């Protein structure tokens, strides 16, 4: 995009951790809901209320840190970051400043500078002429992940975020939904002429609500900064807001106006001590990561790169696949892959349901595929059975049994169906005898209809031919 300048990007990503309760109180950690219904003396900053650290947050934070290869600090400190804002009940945010829980990791080719734990703020609701404060989200647990300033393009930034999202979802620490705000990203970007030059003056981009807006805002900023620099101007250090409507960044405040946060360690919270034993235990909860799993799906299950990629995109899908495969057997991996990524995913998408809420149990999908592969169920029947499975959650065996849908293979029964169809359709028989063998298809269709789709089509085909020969 800008061959004249070297682009340097650093990201600061906030991730809302999935825990039952908030970071420093026992209020439920659920976003949304009636305003101010999930609050208590602690998260509303009442006098005399004290924060108590939620140990589950430690587990999730360490798990996230290990997933992005960070070093865990065995002693970290909670600090107060002080600024006045109405969504911050105590007018200080409890965060980690000098000693974060984890440092020095990497993801893909990008270095991670640090990962620390901090509390979320509430939300302001602006109504005509006044502003209201909703503290449901106040003191919800967050981790902030700060990359090294070594990302070189907007595309790379987007890839990093997508990768991070996938990994953290795999680890089960967060759903990382940028639209819902459970993943938020600020981006720092600067330009310089030569590799040997010091980093240029950066701007900090905020209000980036999707991966796409991260990339677009960075693209825009490269353009804006390079125009300033090429015309001999100077970029000023400032915070800029991405405006989704005008597709531009807009200056918010310059560095000189920025706050002195007066950090100091929080006297209400002792240092956070993390033993090596604990770290080792958490590590055992770290699942196989997406890349490794994809490779295994190719080598172990004989799937194509593409299928393996689709199936391992989300951990829930990959887990589901492996569960189902146990039932239908390794040889059916491709058929299972197609059923899962076409039929199941199609139905789920149409209804807007996630894989974890899939009404069809993995073992049930596995046995359906097994029934197909053993010739007990035709492709068409399978689709009907699946529709029923999706609706009722019953097993395929159960549905086949109940509806009498089992394939008819008995020669006597098939003979009877075929004879009836030949008798009822003398015109078709005549055409066939005239050499128009194409009408056989129509006759097979009639038999299938008569047998409510249960007759084995291959056998019907053979039987019809045999019976017609007799007419000659």
């Amino acid at each position: 995009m800008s061959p004249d300048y070297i682009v340097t990007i650093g990201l600061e990503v906030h991730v809302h951790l999935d825990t039952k309760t908030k970071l420093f109180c026992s209020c439920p950690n659920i976003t949304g809901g009636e305003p101010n219904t999930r609050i208590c003396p602690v998260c509303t900053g009442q006098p005399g209320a004290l924060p108590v650290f939620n140990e589950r947050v430690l587990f999730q934070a360490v798990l996230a840190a290990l997933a992005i290869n960070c070093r865990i600090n065995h002693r970290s400190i909670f600090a107060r970051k002080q600024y006045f804002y109405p969504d911050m009940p105590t007018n200080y945010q409890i965060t980690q400043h000098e000693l974060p829980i984890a440092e020095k990791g990497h993801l893909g080719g990008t270095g991670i500078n640090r990962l620390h734990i901090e509390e979320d703020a509430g939300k302001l609701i602006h109504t005509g002429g006044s502003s209201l404060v909703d503290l449901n989200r106040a003191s919800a647990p967050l981790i902030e992940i700060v990359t090294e300033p070594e990302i070189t393009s907007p595309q790379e930034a987007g890839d990093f975020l997508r990768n991070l999202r996938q990994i953290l979802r795999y680890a089960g620490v967060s759903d990382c939904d940028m639209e819902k705000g459970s993943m938020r990203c600020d981006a720092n970007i600067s330009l310089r002429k030569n590799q040997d030059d010091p980093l240029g003056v950066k701007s900090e981009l905020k209000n980036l609500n999707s991966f796409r807006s991260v990339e677009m805002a960075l693209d825009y900023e490269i353009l804006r900064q390079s125009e300033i620099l090429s015309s001999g101007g100077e970029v000023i250090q400032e915070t800029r807001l991405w405006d989704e409507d005008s597709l531009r960044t807009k200056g918010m405040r310059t560095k000189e106006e920025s706050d002195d946060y007066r950090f100091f360690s929080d006297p209400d919270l002792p240092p956070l001590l993390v033993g090596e034993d604990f770290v080792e235990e958490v590590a055992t909860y770290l699942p196989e990561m997406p890349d490794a799993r994809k490779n295994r799906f190719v080598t172990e299950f004989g799937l194509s790169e593409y299928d393996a990629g689709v199936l391992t995109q989300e951990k829930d899908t990959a887990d589901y696949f492996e569960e189902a495969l146990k039932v239908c057997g390794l040889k059916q991996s491709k058929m299972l892959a197609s059923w899962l990524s076409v039929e199941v995913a199609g139905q789920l998408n149409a209804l807007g349901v996630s894989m974890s809420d899939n009404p069809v149990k993995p073992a049930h999908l596995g046995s359906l595929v097994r029934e197909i592969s053993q010739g007990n169920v035709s492709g068409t029947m399978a689709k009907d059975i699946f529709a029923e499975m999706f609706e009722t959650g019953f097993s395929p065996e159960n549905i086949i049994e109940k509806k009498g849908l089992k394939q008819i293979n008995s020669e006597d029964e098939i003979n009877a169906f075929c004879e009836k169809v030949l008798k009822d359709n003398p015109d078709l028989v005549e055409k066939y005898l005239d050499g128009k063998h194409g009408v056989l298809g129509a006759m097979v269709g009639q038999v299938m209809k008569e047998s409510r789709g249960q007759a084995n089509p291959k056998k019907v085909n053979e039987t019809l031919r045999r019976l017609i020969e007799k007419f000659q």
Partner: protein
Amino acid sequence: MIKKILKKVNSDGAFSLVKQVSAQVLESQEKYNSYITLTLDRASKRAQEIDSLLNAGKNPGPLAGIPVALKDNLLYSGEKMTCGSKILENYFSPYTGTAVEKLEEAGAIVIGKTNMDEFAMGSSGETSYFGPTKNPLHPDRVPGGSSSGSAAAVASGDVPIALGSDTGGSVRQPASFCGVCGLRPTYGRISRYGLSALASSIDQIGVLASSVEDTALVYSLISGHDPKDSTSLNEKGYELSDSIEEGVKGLKIGIPKEYMGETLHSEIRERILEISNKLVSAGAEVKEISLPSLEQALATYYIIAPAEISSNLARYDGVRYGFRAPEAQTLEEMYIESRTQGFGPEVKRRILLGTSILSSGNYESYYLKALKVRSMIKKEFEKIFSSIDLIFSPTTPTPPFKFGEVKDPMEMSMADSYTIPSSLAGLPAMSVPVGSIEKNLPVGAQLIGGTFSEPTIFRCARFMEKIYES
């Protein structure tokens, strides 16, 4: 005192007692302004509940029917909690703090919230938005502070016990000025949950009482680990025993020469030496010791405390509760006007000081340095307590002064100079009344011990109390 009242409750019932106490409280409120809020109706109802338990043959607890007063920086659900400030004039506690809850569980009856220096900043009770409290022993003199009303409520005989809070000496100094006992326990022994924070790393809830025995009893009931306070020590609470009557034989006691210097009132010095002789006669070993960091301790305190104060008091902004300047148009005006009008001058002085101390540029040269000195002071005390059991000193360098007599904030802070060092070190300390001097002014003796040494402190305090019991 508590034992006497318990007998009365058993014979006449708690309701009748509360009725008597109510009459006295209303009268003493007129005279001394010891309270900001009275909870007499609620107290009557509680008394009836306790009576019905007693009548049913049940035990309502070791403090059944005992009237108590709470410093108005302690949260007591449904009642006003002002911290002696305009900014919280109409704030109602949404919950009850741990120590108060434990008192109520033991059967105590809260009769009111006591007056105090605004946000516990002061040593005379004069900075309260609700007017000063008078010293019941000498109504022309200050009761000390910041737990001014709690000390006065005990001194006037309204209640046998009251809770206060002690940061730099706010329980011990008013106890000394009002001639009552005042305990500041080891940091982390009494949960701070439900105590409005001043300087979190130094604040402790303390007990003001009319006798050492009552102090120990109440302390045993409200101390102990609380999961709601992360700085609360993970230890069982103090257990009451007969050891307070064991005397001082064999105790090693040190008197710091720095506490006996020029600024000490001469009659107080004589009193300390008199007690020292009695200690020796009773078999204690008394020697002069040195606490060289006394001066640094004051400087350190006046850096660390304001820093934490500036942060802890940031929440009083008019957004969610408390005073909001009605004329403010913008958010910034709301913050500035609410805080300018809501806080008194002493509070503003310390907030500004603390804000400046934590600002980049000052943080390292003041705050970080103060933290280092603080740990040095802790070590100094540790070393001292490796060879002696208790430090013995006056609680204050002067007897209670007259209203308006001390105007300079620096001079006022001298009233806490003997109590601050042990506060910084998180050590337990107690002021015990040891008679009076010229003009019948009360004197308090301070006993400081190592971590968890409260039983030894009580023992020695009881010995001294007995000497001057009239």
